């Protein structure tokens, strides 16, 4: 099963983008921990990298990789290999390369400087977000034959999840501020993996004490085992639903 991914990962490493990405993550994480006296402030800065840069790089890298591998996929299709196997090999290779970059770039500094609950929450969220956005990017790329369109859709999705979604949530909260919205916001946050990740990490940090009544409610929920299972479960759904949809399109596609 791992024969194909070996060659694909080799090809990915050879094109050096992934190495530059690893170095970028490592240098920024390392310098943040060095510059900030307080470990938890460094974690906050790292949190922003994980929530903004990670999804963007995962989306862009994956879509561009897919279009560049088109020939390779064609070649594999003429061999005695099933489409499911070819697709999952591609996913596995890209996901493992991006995860590797994350674990080396952010994982090592975090384990060195801040190996506590919030550190592990950050690593968990970062890994989950990498997988989620790799799945979403595969879906966008498989569905659109045109390269520019696929990359455009991936970018729009990033804008949506990283920026626009928060605006919409704020708007809803503002419009219905007279009603009790705590449970509803919990639901809203699970519709965006980035939001979910942010809340999950924030509540492992000391700053959550400053967040008032909603914060207390969230803390009750996300601090418990149910909260951990809930976050994990929603992330798993976010990984597998786009992935399975992409696989379904890939199996029907004409090459």
């Amino acid at each position, binding site marked *: 099963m791992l024969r194909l991914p070996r060659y694909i990962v080799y090809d990915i490493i050879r094109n050096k983008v992934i190495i530059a990405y690893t170095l970028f993550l490592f240098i920024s994480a390392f310098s943040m921990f060095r510059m900030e006296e307080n470990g938890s402030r460094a974690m906050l800065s790292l949190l922003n990298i994980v929530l903004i840069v990670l999804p963007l790089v995962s989306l862009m890298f994956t879509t561009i990789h897919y279009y560049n591998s088109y020939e390779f996929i064609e070649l594999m299709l003429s*061999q005695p290999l099933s489409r499911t196997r070819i697709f999952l090999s591609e996913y596995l290779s890209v996901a493992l390369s991006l995860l590797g970059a994350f674990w080396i770039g952010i994982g090592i500094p975090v384990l060195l400087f801040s190996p506590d609950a919030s550190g592990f929450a950050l690593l968990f969220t970062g890994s989950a977000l990498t997988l989620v956005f790799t799945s979403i990017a595969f879906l966008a790329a498989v569905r659109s034959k045109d390269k520019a369109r696929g990359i455009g859709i991936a970018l729009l999705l990033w804008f949506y999840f990283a920026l626009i979604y928060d605006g919409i949530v704020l708007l809803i909260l503002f419009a219905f501020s007279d009603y009790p919205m705590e449970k509803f916001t919990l639901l809203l946050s699970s519709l965006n993996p980035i939001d979910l990740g942010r809340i999950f990490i924030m509540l492992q940090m000391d700053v959550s004490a400053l967040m008032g009544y909603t914060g207390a409610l969230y803390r009750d929920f996300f601090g418990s085992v149910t909260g951990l299972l809930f976050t994990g479960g929603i992330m798993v759904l976010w990984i597998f639903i786009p992935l399975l949809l992409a696989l379904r399109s890939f199996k029907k596609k004409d*090459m």
Partner: protein
Amino acid sequence: MIRINYINKKFRKAQVLEDITADFDCGQVIALIGPNGSGKTTLIKTILGMVKPDSGTVEVKGKLINADPHYRNDIGYMPQIGRYPDNMKVGQLFTMMKAIRQVDDSRIDNDLFLKFNIPSILEKPMRTLSGGTRQKVSAALAFLFDPPILILDEPTAGLDPLSSEILKEKILLEKSKNKLILITSHILSDLEELTTHVLYLQEGKIQFFKELEVLQEETGEIKLNKAIARIMKGQLPDSDWGEQLLLVNKDGKIL
């Protein structure tokens, strides 16, 4: 060995293949000919499972092709434009293909691999190869596993005369081993030494599928290009392609 039943395929609105039905047996060398855009490559890709037909079925060795990808173990495919991963070295490409097919070393057919002098370029990355060299790599790969079915899409286009001659000799040798060989080409003079049958496609429909001798008898022409031009003139007086063919023939060349 290959049975095609009522294949229909539309790309958006264009009908690319219409009610294609044919039976190919071992020992036959079938020339697939027809103007550009007549559906030759689509037909080949349908047999390989790269294009999924809207309706109709393809059987290879009595088995429907969508059930199990292993039928492609029996097929060697040489694409029209061989495109490979940029960073992969020629040597790696061959090791990878051998790893995928898992064929005994004794069954490997190194004939073209050696005659095209591929051992001398094993260390070169695929992106640095010229178009003709890529064709040689594609040809060597198609014949490497000694498959009972060979599908060659424009095999001699882009090859220098010497390599083209080597490839033709190889095709003749395989023909004598009672294999089924499907060839598309616009260079009819190349085909007439090789083929036993001619399948003529136009606008996605089979115009005729005949033995070469029958065709020669019916038209009274020995040369394949003249025979086909005659048929096309008789059947479809408006066909420009037949006209052009006759014009080009006077110079003794086919474009």
